[in-house]
């Protein structure tokens, strides 16, 4: 097996807040290889956006790396100096964000911004950059691309702006594309188009794609492997089919049961997971999901480890037998 492009090892991230230290990520391991589409799925507070920000080196000022490393190719991303980090972020790692409305500056044209995004590509002139930009717009499905280059972001709809954001991310030919909730802010018909686009782009894209989402449907449509996160930990990782058809962790199972799109019968009561996410400033010992788990017992009082049921499938629960 080829060396993974991206390797997150034992990453722990804290946030300093007036309420105390928020343990947003705890001992997270994750890998992505070229040609793969990885999904990171979880609900609020699970840390998926923190993980994405950490990989792209975009953590806010009050974040602290308590432990672990992020290796990208041969670099230890977190320990590079500021300049090197910026270069990495501009050239090798690209990110698409949730909100297409704020991804672009309102006072510059799309063309100006797309050319600006290529600023790290020394050796090609402005005219060529413009051509590349135009070609990329066509590739993401924007008709009349040449006209759009001279237009402003506010003249485009949300769906179109998200496409342009994807175009901007791909312009640098990054080895890693991270999409943080790429379709959450879009209407369902536009969401379908973006999913379709990402799938088409993937075919001739050589790098790795990481998709962060709380929507199981989006993950199911696009990903090869999935990491399920809960309260800052990876609780299950598996190939896409295993996650949806043979989930082993109680949280994954419960989450799937709650998705209304998976419910066949219209019952009187919709399933939920009782309780609330734990307070990340004061975590319990032992399994972090135990308070809400219907299978909890005494063995859950100790911290759980990832148990592998096959080469690529593991769950953080003592009930799982290899």
């Amino acid at each position, binding site marked *: 097996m080829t060396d993974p492009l991206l390797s997150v090892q034992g990453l722990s991230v804290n946030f*300093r*807040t007036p309420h105390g230290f928020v343990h947003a990520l705890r001992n997270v391991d994750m890998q992505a290889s070229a040609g793969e589409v990885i999904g990171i799925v979880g609900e*609020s*507070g699970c840390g998926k956006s923190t993980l994405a920000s950490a990989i792209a080196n975009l953590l806010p000022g009050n974040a602290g790396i308590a432990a672990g490393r992020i290796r990208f190719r041969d670099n230890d991303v977190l320990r590079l100096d500021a300049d090197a980090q910026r270069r990495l972020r501009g050239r090798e790692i690209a990110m698409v964000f949730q909100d297409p409305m704020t991804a672009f500056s309102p006072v510059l044209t799309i063309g100006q911004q797309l050319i600006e995004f290529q600023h790290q590509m020394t050796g090609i002139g402005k005219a060529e950059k413009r051509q590349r930009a135009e070609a990329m717009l066509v590739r993401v499905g924007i008709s009349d691309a040449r006209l759009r280059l001279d237009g402003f972001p506010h003249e485009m709809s949300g769906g179109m702006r998200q496409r342009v954001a994807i175009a901007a991310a791909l312009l640098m030919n990054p080895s890693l594309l991270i999409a943080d909730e790429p379709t959450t802010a879009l209407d369902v018909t536009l969401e379908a188009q973006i999913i379709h686009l990402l799938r088409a782009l993937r075919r001739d894209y050589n790098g790795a794609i990481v998709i962060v989402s709380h929507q199981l449907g989006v993950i199911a449509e696009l990903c090869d492997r999935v990491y399920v996160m809960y309260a800052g930990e990876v609780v299950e990782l598996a190939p896409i089919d295993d996650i949806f058809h043979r989930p082993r962790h109680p949280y994954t199972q419960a989450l799937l049961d709650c998705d209304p799109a998976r419910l066949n019968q219209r019952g009187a009561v919709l399933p939920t997971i009782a309780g609330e996410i734990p307070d*990340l400033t004061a975590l319990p010992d032992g399994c972090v999901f135990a308070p809400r788990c219907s299978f909890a017992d005494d063995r859950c009082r100790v911290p759980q480890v990832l148990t592998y049921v096959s080469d690529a499938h593991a769950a953080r629960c003592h009930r799982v037998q290899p």
Partner: protein
Amino acid sequence: MSSAVEPRTLPEAGRARGGALRKALANPMGALGLAIVTTIVVLALFADALAPYDPLKIDVLHKLEGPSAAHWAGTDNLGRDTLSRIIYGARVALGVACISIGLAMFVGLLLGLVAGYGPRWLDGVLVLFFDSLSALPMIMFSLAVITVLGPGTGTLILVISLVSIPGYARLVRAQTLALKRSDFITAERSLDAGPARIILIHLLPNVVGPLIILASMDIPVVIMLEAGLSFLGLGVRPPTPSWGSILYDGYNALRSSTTLVIAGGLPLVLATLGFTFLGEALRDGLDPKLQRRGQR
């Protein structure tokens, strides 16, 4: 349990103000400002106890003397103790400022709320009124009012209030217009709350904050205004001591003594600096964006 998972701090309405004062004090400029403002307030409140002499007592034999043991700030052109006049001048300055700003705030708040939330035609009329009022050159306006009502402190307060109203009203109106579209106002309308209820209970408490900040930043401006008008003889009538009138007396006596001019000008400068420093430190302390950054 609120979502402590997010690294952003929740805005805390009431606690913010106490925290703001603490932050203002942490800032050296704010601390200095607070010290100056406190001094002026103390002088104004306890002038009777603190002033060494009667500020109105004339003693022509000792006019325009420089600073001495008997008269720390010297005497003015009529032999009155300058220091006592400065101390009582603080009372005038603060008194005029607080009353006129208070009046202007009250009227501006109501008019701004009505303009912002009321029918469009009323808004049009009120905005016209505000624009007209602020278009008047103040000196001429004062002269006009004085001609009708006669000079004096009361007229002064009236003039300053009227001139300040548009600024406050416009601020309140802008805030109201913005809040009018909020979900919570729509929610109140869906419960069939009437305009009076919405304005007084739901809009007023939410617009009053910036108004208070603006008003506190206005205090030094009004002090200057009062001094300026008094200097021109359009403010408090002599012999009532006002920093502006001390300045005027000093200006006339400049060839004989520089002490008086400085005595009139210095408290003005200090007051303006003090209130401005404090006001800015408080405003920064209350600014939610600066709070959220967490570090400073």
